[in-house]
């Protein structure tokens, strides 16, 4: 169980995350979507206690009843691998190039679980099989540079699962991979989370991947969660103007033919320090009101378990905006 309440992360004046609140129940799979700079990776790192040293965090963060708000690295170390694990984007250098991948996976097994060398080896072999690595016996003895990108990512997943964590955070795990490999990795993560009853936080800018993987989706912009809800509902019927823009900007094949020009959200994601104090999306929003830039929108409940942070939600709910 993860409980985040009013979590903010600051770098000096700039707010990288602003008052994030969310709850994850055991076995739940959450997708975090947003453009680069939206704060989704920062939120992932915050859940691992691995924010950069200069970052100042405030708010409450509880994982499995451990209050980790302001916890020291020593406390976090006890959580990592055993409670929360994380896999990252670039699989090329994400593994120590001087070590056989088997030894890398065995390290936390021996260190955290105190397994003997042969037990750790047996366990690593099982993990390799579980993550769908071909010829696992042989792969244990190979070095990262001898594996393909997809295989390396599977090794990283095996490593993350080594100490049987209740939560897996996957930060853009497929971005560096070929499309068909990416698809298999996404499905593997979904299957593993389901089989193990493990919480999954799937961070991606790829809406299709999130739709495949997650049950709940949180759309992030400018360090805030602007919209959250069951993935099917949010993607089929977005409430927030940003989510709508994001969905429109996707290349889709309609009637067998690719649309010539993709619609875009006007403007660029502003730098952290230049974000407007009120609604983060103001300045780029198509349905903006004069007070949007200065006033922070409240988080409105929009039916069922859905929420949306937009000043115009009441009108959206009335259907006046369609």
């Amino acid at each position: 169980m993860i409980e985040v309440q009013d979590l903010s992360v600051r770098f000096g004046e700039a707010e990288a995350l602003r008052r994030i609140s969310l709850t994850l129940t055991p076995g739940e799979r959450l997708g975090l979507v947003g453009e680069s700079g939206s704060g989704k990776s920062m939120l992932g790192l915050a859940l691992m206690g691995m924010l950069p040293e200069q970052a100042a965090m405030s708010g409450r963060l509880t994982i499995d009843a451990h209050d980790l708000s302001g916890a020291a690295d020593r406390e976090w170390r006890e959580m990592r691998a055993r409670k929360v694990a994380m896999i990252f984007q670039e699989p090329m250098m994400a593994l120590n190039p001087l070590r056989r991948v088997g030894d890398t996976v065995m390290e936390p097994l021996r260190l955290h679980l105190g397994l003997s060398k042969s037990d750790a080896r047996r366990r690593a072999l099982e993990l390799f099989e579980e993550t769908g690595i071909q010829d696992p016996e042989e792969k244990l003895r190979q070095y990262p540079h001898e594996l393909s990108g997809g295989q390396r990512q599977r090794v990283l997943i095996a490593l993350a699962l080594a100490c049987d964590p209740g939560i897996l955070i996957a930060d853009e795990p497929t971005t560096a991979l070929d499309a068909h490999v990416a698809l298999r990795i996404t499905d593997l993560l979904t299957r593993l989370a389901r089989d193990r009853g493990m919480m999954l936080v799937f961070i991606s800018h790829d809406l299709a991947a999130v739709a495949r993987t997650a049950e709940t989706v949180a759309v992030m912009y400018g360090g805030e969660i602007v919209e959250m809800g069951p993935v099917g509902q949010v993607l089929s019927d977005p409430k927030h103007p940003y989510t709508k823009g994001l969905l429109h900007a996707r290349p889709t094949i309609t009637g067998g033919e690719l649309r010539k020009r993709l619609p875009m959200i006007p403007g660029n994601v502003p730098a952290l320090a230049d974000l407007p104090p009120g609604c983060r999306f103001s300045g780029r929003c198509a349905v903006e009101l004069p007070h949007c830039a200065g006033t922070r929108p409240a988080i409105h409940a929009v039916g069922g378990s859905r929420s949306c942070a937009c000043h115009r939600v009441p009108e959206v709910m009335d259907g006046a905006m369609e």
Partner: protein
Amino acid sequence: MQVFLLRRTLGFLATILAISVIVFLVMNVLPGDPSVTILGIDSTEDARAALRAQLGLDDPIWLRYLHWIWGAVRGDFGTSYFFRVPVSDLILERLPLTLSLAAFGTLATVTLGILLGVIAAANHGRAGDWLIMLVSQLGIAVPAFWLSMLLVLLFAVKLRWLPPGGFPGWDDPVAALRSLILPTTALALVQSAVLARVTRSSALEVMRLDFVRTARASGMTRGRILGRHILPNALVPIVTIVGMQVAGVVTGTIVIENVFYLPGLGRLVFQSIANRDLFTVQALVVLFAAIVVTTNFLVDIAYVLIDPRLKGRLS
């Protein structure tokens, strides 16, 4: 691997041969007449001419080289003009002292340099890093002979903890080792300052790589990440510099042995050059060159042992 070793061995022999030619040529075009060295300034021209003929000094240079190199291959480096004993005896007598000094110097350099470099990197941007970098900057700037004199003044003259110089021989190992402490320190301090800086920057570069984040995410302690993940990956530049420093330490013994009155090869080099002792100088230069070339060879092998990705480049 065999192909690699064979090629490197041939390269090694070719290098040594080339060095021997250069050394021989240089020593023979330098002014100075060995016959004067042997017979003294007061000797008659007739006597000198007779001696030159006897020593074969009037032969053409290529013939003299062939004589010399053929002897050297069989372990006969000629007879010292100055000491009047076989050069090989001179060298063998002094080799243990210089090798010990060079070995201790290298060991101290590596230990101190890597330790300080890692501590600096671990405390990047904080006081410890700042202090180590300041001290190592000073260390690099200080010449070894001057440092030697300061060490003698402090530890031998003022505190009287250690002998100021000289070597009592290996019969008393404790006294022998005690007399090597100051020379080793003088040799190692400057070199380890250089190594500390290289270690620090290499470690800092590795720290930014993704696998360090992976190790952190696996709940590893800082010490373990530093020792087991960062340091091994930082070793390639470190080993390169250590290889060059072995050469620095070996040639550094020339100065250090003279400052501390140690009867080793370094002192022998100095004496032989001053005395125009051709055969001794030639043998010593080739020996020093061989040590340096061997070190480079070992460094190349170390690369492959450190980094499995380099194995493909061997053949």
